């Protein structure tokens, strides 16, 4: 345990007994976490709606506050005042637990992300593993939502969501192994300090796989079969209304913000940048904004994939890519590291050069291999019964 928790604990320990300063530190950490996630969700909702609007040549929300910045809060207030319906045949305890189970992993995920130097709420030595473990809880929450709703659309959405989440967990974990191998540590603070060269350049394949996998795990548009509006009513959260729906939405959009934070930490050098000792938070926020923009950009561009296409993409495309990446990284680390097992900056640049070429080749190769071979049907005029018969013949 270190980081902000330790700081608050020691500051409170000056006047308070030990158990009470633990309490103070815990409560303040929870306050910071929950508010960070909810504000991140609000900011991301606003950003997404404005940007999607501009992508559609619209303006987006602009009535509430400057540039519509208060729109998420207005939405939230509206949802809080709406009736909170629990279906008669729903499994009530599970149904009530769902929003909490959805929001919890997002909040927990933020706990290990370092916002700036020494500013991670908790500096876990197994941070990467913790992030992976915590995000897997979403799968359970989605299945709980589908099952407890007693609604066929929710159940279909949940089944699809679980299938997608479990499939995409595999390439995501394997791509993260590459990061861990280069860093030599699972702590996110170590990952950041190891990125003298951003891992986006050192292992672009892992970044690509992780971005796609995170998109899928967040149920965002190219992979959002779990809540496909045009097929299932709203997917697994069809039956949720009022505060529960608000919490699920907050979890979804806060999840994007939190995942962007994780991606920045793992691949874009976290809070690193010029004058990072003082402006680390600014660099972190800027990079999170860039990643969030990429998420929105992808959502504005690509149509939803079919379920079998999503599965094919996970198992035939992303999994081989992540394995290639892991294999290449392990070989490069094995041959390039010095006697003490440390990689210098020049080693990282050599790896970056090799891996960028490898990434382009592998994506092109596997992209061509999973391409659907479509043979267009030759057009034939509709056959009319008796069309070949001579005119005037009595039938």
């Amino acid at each position, binding site marked *: 345990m270190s980081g902000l928790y330790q700081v608050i604990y020691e500051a409170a320990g000056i006047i308070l007994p030990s158990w009470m300063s633990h309490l103070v530190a815990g409560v303040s950490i929870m306050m910071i976490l929950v508010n960070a996630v909810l504000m991140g969700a609000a900011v991301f909702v606003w950003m997404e709606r404005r940007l999607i609007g*501009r992508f559609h040549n619209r303006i987006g929300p602009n009535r509430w506050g400057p540039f519509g910045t208060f729109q998420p809060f207005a939405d939230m207030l509206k949802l809080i005042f709406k009736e909170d319906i629990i279906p008669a045949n729903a499994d009530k305890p599970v149904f009530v637990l769902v929003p909490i189970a959805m929001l919890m992993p997002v909040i927990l995920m933020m706990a290990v992300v370092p916002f700036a130097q020494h500013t991670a709420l908790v500096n876990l030595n197994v941070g990467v593993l913790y992030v992976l473990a915590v995000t897997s809880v979403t799968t359970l929450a989605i299945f709980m939502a589908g099952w407890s709703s007693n609604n066929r659309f929710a159940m279909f959405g949940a089944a699809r969501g679980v299938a997608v989440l479990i499939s995409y967990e595999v390439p995501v974990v394997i791509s993260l192994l590459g990061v861990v191998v280069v860093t030599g540590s699972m702590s996110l603070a170590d990952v950041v300090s190891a990125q003298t060269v951003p891992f986006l350049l050192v292992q672009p394949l892992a970044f690509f796989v992780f971005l796609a996998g995170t998109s899928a795990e967040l149920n965002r548009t190219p992979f959002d079969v779990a809540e496909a509006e045009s097929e299932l009513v709203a997917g697994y959260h069809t039956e949720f209304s009022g505060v529960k729906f608000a919490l699920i939405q907050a979890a979804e959009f806060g999840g994007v913000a939190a995942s962007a934070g994780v991606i920045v930490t793992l691949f874009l050098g976290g809070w690193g940048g010029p004058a990072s000792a003082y402006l680390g938070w600014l660099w972190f926020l800027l990079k999170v904004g860039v990643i969030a923009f990429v998420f929105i950009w992808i959502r504005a561009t690509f149509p939803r994939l079919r379920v079998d296409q999503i599965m094919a993409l996970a198992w035939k495309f992303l999994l081989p890519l992540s394995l290639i990446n892991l294999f290449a990284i392990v070989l490069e680390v094995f041959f390039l590291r010095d006697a003490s097992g440390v990689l210098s900056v020049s080693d990282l640049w050599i790896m970056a050069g090799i891996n960028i070429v490898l990434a382009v080749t592998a994506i092109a190769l596997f992209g061509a291999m999973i391409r659907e071979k479509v043979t267009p049907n030759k057009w034939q005029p509709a056959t009319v019964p008796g069309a070949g018969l001579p005119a005037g013949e009595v039938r």
Partner: protein
Amino acid sequence: MFGLSMAAGLLVTLKNLTKKPFTVQYPEERVKQHPRFRGEEFVWYEERCTGCASCAKYCPLGIIKIETSPSETQPQQGDKYVLETFDIQLNRCMFCGLCVEACPYDALFMGSGFEQGRYSRKDMVITIDDLRHADKKPSTYLRPQLESANYDPRAGKPLDWKEVGRESWDWHLREKAGMRLSRPTLPGHADGPNAVEDSDSGQDANRNPDNRDTA
């Protein structure tokens, strides 16, 4: 090929991001409206209306109700019937403009508004008082004399009843005084055999596209 089309798709959306939005922020800004727009709140000139009820007869929905009474003075002396009721049920009106087309004296014009929404159906009926006090900014629908004068009901000034007719005011004066000497001439036939030199109405004659008023 090789996933490049995905990048091309991303570029397409990025290009759209930089374009100016199409949205018109309606209450604050409006799209330019055509002067021939057939809108609500008919423009009606009581001075021109004779109460002939052609509009009511032509209305396919029968939503115009007109009641008249003989005027105090004699119609032969130039006076006309007094309009007592002129109700238009706007809630059923489909703005076909047949009433405007039917009006022989250019007394009824389409309006140019579109913001007459009401909370009850009773309020949707325009009475004669509403018509009297409405903004006199006629649409140029089926009124070539306004159209050729480039009148814009949204931007232009309100028009008096003397200005909106096909005939010139001089023509009216002479009509009333029994001085109907000159046949109104079409712009292209100013030197025709029936044209009479009239320095007074030389400009106004250009605004008479038809000659239905001749004896």
